């Protein structure tokens, strides 16, 4: 089902809001860089910083499923054999 708003209308409607969110991301990453100038990130923080970078790459990519792909990036993997791991039987 197409949205009643046209693409032009959505861009016009959302430009300032998205611009503000992008600035927030940019400023946060700048803050991280300033704070880590004198000491490197811990492994955990570096892993999270890397996850943010991968998220930014998804946002910059083509396609109409960016939100779902971003969600999957930040999701634990599904293990089809989880029942065997837990020693549980199927009904």
């Amino acid at each position: 089902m197409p949205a009643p708003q046209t693409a032009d209308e959505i861009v016009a409607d959302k430009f300032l809001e998205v611009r503000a969110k992008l600035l927030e991301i940019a400023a946060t990453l700048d803050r991280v860089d300033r704070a880590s100038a004198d000491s490197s990130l811990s492994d955990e923080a570096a892993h999270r910083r890397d996850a943010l970078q991968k998220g930014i790459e998804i946002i910059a990519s083509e396609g109409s499923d960016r939100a779902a792909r971003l969600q999957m990036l930040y999701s634990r993997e599904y293990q089809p054999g989880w029942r065997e791991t837990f020693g549980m039987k199927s009904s």
Partner: protein
Amino acid sequence: MDYIDPHIHMVSRTTDDYATLARMGCVAMSEPAFWAGYDRGSVDGFRDYFRQLTETEPARAAQYGIQHYTWLCINAKEAENVELSREVIKMIPEFLQRPNVLGIGEIGLNKNTKNEATIFAEHVDLAVTHQELILIHTPHLEDKYQGTRMILDMLCDDSRVTPDRVLVDHVEEHTIKEVLDRGFWAGMTLYPVTKCTPQRAVDMIEMTGGERLMANSAGDWGPSKPTAVPDLIFEMRRRGLSESLIKKVVYDNPLEFFGKSKRFKFQPRQ
């Protein structure tokens, strides 16, 4: 517009919130049993909580013309205590015939552990044995996808479960399709940080068409907004979506799903 909030934890809200919800058009709500902010120590703690859900909250809601329904369970977070969980599950039938009880919920997973999965399966057994509806909690953040898949595995493997009698809540962009494709109802929880904004929820409505889909506020102890469903209505109107589609998501769909419970006696506003 009259609307129904299908998932809101009014035990954690003030009476002022009931008044605000009524002014915003809320005519009915359903309140799943959940975590109290601390782990309860005994089955009697849950017995008292179920009295609150079946006696106190309906009376508070009625003061503002809101019809209050509820769901009973021990939530996934406390399901790590298997012994207590089994005592609670054994006690739940004492309350199943109370007039505002719609079924068993919100059951599900939290950190996707073996104990949580065990107690989830035992709740499902309780629900199907008593022919009750089921309301499902799916985990948050990085655990959501894995946990949702595990929950769907367990539900779909149990031939006694009718997907049309199960509402899977807190769906997001990466879980909504599988829930709907497998024939379940889906709920989107409008929650500022860990779940979904009204804008993203409307995106999902546009992409799925709104069939078997609802929206709720959660309205719990955390940073949440009990009037989030009116925010969704406002966003749908702002985008030019039809009044019939808005009504379907916030009123008709909850009525149809809840109507599968014999105890749902909703009286529309005249």
